[in-house]
């Protein structure tokens, strides 16, 4: 092949449309006769619904319809369970999924009560004020520990408690490990993760075409195929009658894969009822209640160590705030449970969690998806152990790393993909070395001392993590050479900015000897590609990418076969490049790929038996299990000891995600992840009062990092290929976001000399005001 693009920083195919304002996002759709929906949502976290009267709303000019739960008849059903609980012995799981409109009780602020349809969004929102609602407010379950106590109000009365799930997983014998330990480190940790806050909120447009008997749904979803299948079932249609299109989506980061949101269920139904297209676009205020969150866990964790700092075992008991419903099963807490183990040898592990129902919005994965919580516990335990055993914090990590000859490394517990948690490959120590070198760890103590003499408080942090990525079940791709010589690639996953239009094009371009710009990628349209799972768990490039590669290989072989027949030569004598197949050494003897595509679909004459028409192929790829990426982040910060103003002086990420398809896009994924990690570590916290009211539901109060808060990052990569797929790639979408919490905690303790002052940072986020509270009574 002349110009290999795989592994090169190829500029993105999708940029042009986005840079010129021509990309279609959901709110850009304008359909003839389109109506608009607005939702009346519960203003309280927990209430019995006594009466809802929409009569006055319906009188308002321009209002077309209004529906409450009772109007939905049999269509009113709790949503499906998206991820059933994994096969773990002794597991308890109470399935209580969200409903389209609250019927008897409202279970969190923002739960929809009424959908109003009007000629414009302005009128629909006006009409919300006309609706008469009577609620009997109930005590809200907000605090997890209180929620589990006797006499607590119940989110779901019929469950009998607020336990959504209970899971215990063990490896080895922790009690025996603890009995022979030289030191036990035991702490209570609280980790809060926030709301993903893509800059584009959610939206749904549904169009029922009565004459064609066809439903088209545009949806800001990360998983269009599942949305189609689910909605077809609910609406009583064949899957073929439903087309779901995820257009350009303005960021997802997890919550856009949740399904089915009430709005996704209701709009198609109403569209069928009224035979009109209907649009609903979430506003930012709604987003804080109507889109899922990630939130908090409380861990009571202990680590047993030998005097030389080797981990003998870990015991952890934690509570996970699941919110009002649990449609996503146990994905988030299982990720926490599994990812806690990190890149380290942990001979014994005893981990138990309880997922708690609360009267707060539902929790589903947000970039990292619980991995952060686990990494925080592990990394903090190691920091305290290092301190007590008088070992350098980076040295204690090094001593416990899984050695390179131990892979595949079996952790013996069950992961979110229902498989045993086994790390496929890794070489961890060089990643740590490169990070320490890049941050200047050796020289830092000296710099720190000098700075301190000038009254400046510097601190260093180093944190390690692994990331389970690229899980199954499968994805598919159809690669097709068009008669104009361009190549089309279609896959079923949705895309939210990850560069799929480019990386999939690179893969196909290399196989087929065409320019990346001549490969047109279609994602997220169920009529273009029928099957698939979705974009989540850092799996798009791994799973769909490998499917594209397999399909493109078949097309390449087909092209070579056709050309060898044409030239009556052996396939080995042919090269495929610059959009043509030619005979080696005789470049003037060639046939264009587009012409071969035409010949593969002849008008006359017999085709050979067993030949499929068209220069195309569809292939599927399903990895046996997820591939495990790893990395180390290191920072140097400066903190003002009075105002707790933070300055990040240096931020280093060293990462191993196997073979890299496009280093430019990979770097972008890491940069964005780090920014979210910084937000998580320092700024972003959903603050609820004891009534379950969110107190900071605007972007003016819930602070996302700005260009002034995110530093320049230095990136480096090592490559340990995954043996689980032919291209050797591992996912990278979440890596940047994972270790921010412990990294900052470590660096802030160092900068403010908190060890000496007997203050330990056991929680995230650590905003300036929280740091003030935590240190105000400490020694100086």
């Amino acid at each position, binding site marked *: 092949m002349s110009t290999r693009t795989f592994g090169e920083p190829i500029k993105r195919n999708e940029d042009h449309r986005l840079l010129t304002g021509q990309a279609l996002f959901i709110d850009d759709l304008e359909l003839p006769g389109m109506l608009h929906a607005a939702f009346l949502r519960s203003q309280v976290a927990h209430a019995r619904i006594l009466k809802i009267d929409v009569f006055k709303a319906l009188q308002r000019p321009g209002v077309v319809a209004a529906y409450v739960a009772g109007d939905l008849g049999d269509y009113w059903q709790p949503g499906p369970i998206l991820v059933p609980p994994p096969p773990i012995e002794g597991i308890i799981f109470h399935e209580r999924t969200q409903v389209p409109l609250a019927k008897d009780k409202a279970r969190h602020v923002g739960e929809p009560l009424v959908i109003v349809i009007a000629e414009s969004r*302005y009128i629909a929102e006006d009409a919300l004020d006309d609706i008469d609602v009577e609620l009997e407010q109930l005590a809200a379950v907000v605090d997890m520990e209180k929620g589990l106590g006797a006499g607590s109000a119940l989110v779901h009365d019929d469950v009998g408690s607020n336990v959504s799930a209970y899971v215990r997983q063990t490896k080895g014998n922790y009690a025996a490990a603890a009995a022979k330990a030289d030191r036990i480190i035991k702490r209570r940790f609280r980790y809060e993760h926030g709301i993903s806050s*893509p800059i584009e909120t959610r939206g749904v447009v549904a169009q029922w075409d009565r004459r064609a008997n066809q439903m088209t749904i545009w949806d800001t979803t990360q998983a269009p195929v599942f949305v189609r299948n689910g909605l077809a079932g609910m609406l009583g249609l064949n899957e073929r009658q439903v087309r779901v299109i995820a257009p*350009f989506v*303005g*960021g997802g980061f997890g919550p856009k894969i949740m399904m089915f949101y009430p709005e996704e269920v209701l709009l198609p139904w109403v569209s069928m009822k009224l035979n009109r297209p209907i649009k609903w676009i979430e506003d930012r205020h709604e987003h804080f209640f109507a889109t899922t969150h990630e939130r908090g866990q409380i861990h009571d964790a202990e680590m047993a160590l030998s005097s030389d700092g080797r981990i003998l075992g870990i015991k952890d008991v934690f509570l996970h705030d699941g919110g009002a419903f649990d449609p996503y099963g146990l994905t988030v807490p299982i990720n926490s449970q599994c990812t806690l183990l990190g890149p380290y040898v942990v001979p014994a592990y005893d981990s138990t969690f309880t997922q708690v129902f609360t009267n707060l919005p539902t929790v589903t994965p947000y970039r990292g998806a619980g991995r952060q919580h686990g990494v925080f516990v592990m990394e903090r335990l190691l920091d305290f152990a290092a301190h007590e055993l008088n070992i350098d914090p980076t040295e204690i990590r090094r001593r416990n790393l899984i050695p390179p000859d131990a892979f595949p490394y079996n952790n013996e517990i069950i992961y979110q993909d229902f498989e045993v948690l086994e790390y496929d490959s890794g070489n961890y120590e060089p990643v740590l070395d490169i990070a320490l070198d890049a941050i200047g760890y050796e020289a830092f103590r000296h710099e720190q001392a000098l700075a301190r003499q000038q009254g400046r408080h510097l601190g260093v942090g180093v944190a390690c993590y692994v990331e389970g990525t690229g899980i199954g079940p499968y994805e598919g791709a159809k690669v097709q050479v068009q008669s104009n010589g361009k190549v089309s690639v279609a896959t079923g996953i949705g895309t939210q900015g990850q560069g799929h239009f480019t990386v999939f094009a690179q893969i196909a371009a290399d196989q087929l000897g065409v320019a990346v710009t001549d490969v047109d990628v279609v994602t997220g349209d169920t009529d273009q590609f029928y099957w698939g799972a979705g974009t989540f768990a850092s799996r798009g490039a791994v799973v769909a990418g490998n499917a594209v590669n397999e399909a493109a290989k078949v097309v390449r072989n087909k092209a070579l076969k056709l050309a060898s027949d044409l030239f009556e030569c052996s396939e080995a004598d042919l090269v495929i490049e610059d959009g043509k197949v030619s005979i080696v050494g005789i470049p003037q003897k060639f046939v264009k790929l587009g012409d071969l595509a035409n010949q593969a679909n002849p008008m006359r004459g017999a085709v050979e038996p067993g030949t499929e028409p068209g220069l195309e192929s569809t292939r599927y790829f399903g990895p046996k299990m997820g591939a495990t990426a790893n990395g180390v982040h290191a920072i140097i910060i400066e903190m003002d000891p009075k105002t707790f103003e933070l300055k990040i002086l240096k931020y280093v990420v060293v990462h191993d995600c196997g073979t890299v398809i496009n280093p430019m896009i990979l770097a*972008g994924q890491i940069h964005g992840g780090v920014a979210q990690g910084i937000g998580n570590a320092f700024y972003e916290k959903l603050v609820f009062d004891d009534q379950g009211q969110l107190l900071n539901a605007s972007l003016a109060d819930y602070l996302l990092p700005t260009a002034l808060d995110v530093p320049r990052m230095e990136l480096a990569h090592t490559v340990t290929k995954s043996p689980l797929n032919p291209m050797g790639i591992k996912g990278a979408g979440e890596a*940047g976001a994972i270790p921010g919490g412990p990294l900052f905690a470590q660096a802030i303790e160092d900068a403010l000399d908190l060890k000496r002052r007997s203050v330990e940072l056991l929680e995230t986020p650590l905003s300036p005001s929280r740091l003030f509270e935590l240190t105000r009574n400490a020694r100086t």
Partner: protein
Amino acid sequence: MDIDFHDITLSVNGTKYQRRIESRLLLSDFIRHDLALAGTHVGCEHGVCGACTILLDGQPVRSCLMLAVQANHHELSTVEGLADKAGEYHPLQQAMHEHHGLQCGYCTPGILMTITAFLDENSSPSEDEVREALSGNLCRCTGYQNIVDAVLAAADRMRG
């Protein structure tokens, strides 16, 4: 509520428009839905994210914080007018492409409008100044680094 209508005349990217609109109509909704210039995005509708930034008589403004009537008799510019007539990128668009300054691209139109105006005022900004200028535009995807690099490169190119 009584609905009152206004007749307005304004120009967007050099094209004149005359429309009858409701007084309460947001400028962002007017541009996106009445004029079908959907390149201007809306991320928060409360003036924080900057996605809806357009130029009003050359100055960046948040179109979600203005009513369409307030734009009467003004000249507006949106992302659709940034490339030249031949479709050639503005140097900032070109630099954003080259430096991978966008991922989902949702924040991008607002950033392009904010920063083209900024570069008109400050043709050789420092990195700190660029970050300051960008700080009113939220991007959840990129971590800003590549945007900063793109702005510095565009400034460089525009100075020639």
